């Protein structure tokens, strides 16, 4: 059981070949300002690299930013690899240019909430905090 007092650890990741890191960096800074421990992978990560970093860093959350349209491939792949690595307790969330219908389809595949353009960073922070609080009381 995770120590309920432990600081929330988040891996902010940029999967795939997409180089748009404005959102990832803004969310990483905002998470850090909110008191989370943040590890940022840098760009052009494969799902394998992300899962390996997530397991090694023992994170609670993997937050991915995808603006390339490859979200239907990348999010499920990271979820499956995490589960295979025994990290099924890790939340996979994120944001980017993702149509609402795709967000719903991904949710059905075990992905957490996904955030689109215009999101307030405070909403993303609140979502992660609530999710963790819920997990730790179970």
């Amino acid at each position, binding site marked *: 059981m995770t120590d309920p007092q432990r600081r929330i650890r988040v891996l*902010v990741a940029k999967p795939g070949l997409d*180089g*748009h890191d*404005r959102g990832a*960096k803004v969310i990483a800074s905002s998470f850090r300002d909110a008191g989370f421990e943040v590890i940022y992978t840098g760009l052009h990560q494969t799902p394998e690299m992300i899962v390996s970093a997530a397991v090694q860093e023992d994170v609670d959350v993997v937050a991915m930013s995808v603006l*390339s349209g490859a979200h239907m491939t990348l999010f499920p792949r990271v979820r499956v690899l995490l589960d295979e690595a025994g990290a099924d307790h890790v939340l996979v969330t994120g944001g980017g240019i993702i149509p609402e219908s795709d967000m719903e389809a991904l949710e059905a595949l075990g992905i957490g909430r996904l955030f689109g353009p215009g999101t*307030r960073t405070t909403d993303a922070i609140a979502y992660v905090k609530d999710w963790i609080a819920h997990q730790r009381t179970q």
Partner: protein
Amino acid sequence: MSTLERDVLSRSELDALVREREAELAELKAQLNEWIEAYDATPKRDASFTTISGRELKPLYTALDRADADDTEAVGLPGFYPFTRGPYATMYRTRLWTMRQFAGFATAEETNERYKYLLDQGQTGLSVAFDFPTLMGYDSDHPRSLGEVGVCGVAISSLADMERLFEGIPLDQVSVSMTINGPAIILFCFYVAAAEKQGVSPEVLRGTVQNDILKEYQAQHAWVFPPEPALRCIVDMLEWCSTHAPKYNPISISGYHIREAGATAAQELAFTLRNGFEYVERAIARGLDVDDFAPRLSFFFDVHSDFFEEIAKLRAARRIWARAMRDTYGAKDPESWRLRTHAQTAGVSLTAQQAENNIVRVAYQAMAAALGGAQSLHTNSMDETLALPTEKSVRIALRTQQILAFESGVTNTIDPLAGSYFLESLTDALEQDAQAIFEEVDALGGVVPGIHQGWFQQQIAGSAMQQQRDIESGRRVVVGVNDFTDGSGDIQIDTLKIDPAVERRQVDAMARMRASRDNQVVTRTLSDLTTACRTDENIVPRILDCARAYCTLYEIRHAMEDVFGAYKEPISF
């Protein structure tokens, strides 16, 4: 006889003129004091009167703000040094800006159809958007390309794809812009080889390849090789094009991505021009005559939402460039002093909420581009924050330019805002900010050391974070996002979806292409390329040989990487 018709004024005449001018300014000052009283006595709205880049603005600008300015020298006339008022003497009276919509998705065949549609709709140039695997130098059948083939642009992995992309489009008549950077030299060779197949010589090719690697490290992040070999490739292209493709622009020095990643207007202006100076210095160091390549350098700026600041930015860019090219780099040909630019409306300003409002944002931004004197323009489609644009939204974006060009009247008079106390003051302020940033970059040891230290990346991320804070605190209003949100909940509009079968079809086509080519020639041309990379030889002819042999993008990249290595970014946030 008026004073203007005489060469020399007498001392007493000069004194009289000075006294007259001083009296005018004193009178203005007295009037202005009255206005200040009236202004101070009236309550103001609770709003921040700054540009979106955070620049404090005065409520009013007058002749007093220009009292010390030498506008005859600094503003001048269009088509003449320092080109503040426009790169050409006649501007839009001779030629409207090129209406060039950036497009590409799925396979070469599908994008070819969209190009033919756009040309039928009155578009006057083409602009290729490549998918992420192509931008990063991976073939469609490389494992790293999985899920990304044809999704964000068109997949081009060899000459065969490039031939299909332009089938039925005469490359001696249509100017084509290609947004590609890390592997630009390879895609450029595919393009030249595709033109050859149409019987078109590089001598007549018009168009542009973006090929601006420095801003990739700083902002857009589609790199392949480390800075030094990447810069060598760019100088090879400048050199090759100056003799073989004299009408082609082998680089488009781009601020767009720097701005979109979060930079302020002044940072966009300064980083872009400083990058431009770096390319000029590298080419001169190679032994090229500045006047042999500088006339083909082209630029690409963002036009964001702050109307006057964007117009001022384009005017300041032309002036700074002209002065540097003439005075610092010793260019003698006025063509070398002239900054020509493409412009694109700000993708980052578009909102997913009430997406139709984006049509209005784009229209204002497009007007700023026209008043700033841009040579070509892409107007964003309203649905780009949600997905690739649909045909309908692209048509509206193109029509926005046509309404601007043919109905609004802004094309009748050249640089109509010149002489505005405000606009000229803002133009000067941007120029001064840029000079200060140039000094900061020099203090870091130049552009490449600044990239290795992550300085540009941190500057941009810092500005992006500030803008996010301004929006979340409500200091800056974004309609539909943090104010006027009624109707923002429903963001369902039609979007274009790429069929996952596209990837399968592209992978199959590559397998057929690999099976039908002469693999001995492939091996030989690739090995010759690797050898050439180890020497000082210009590698463009070697890559052209590889392209003609149907070597793939990744094969060519790999042959170069053996010598050049791969780039690793300094990670920070």
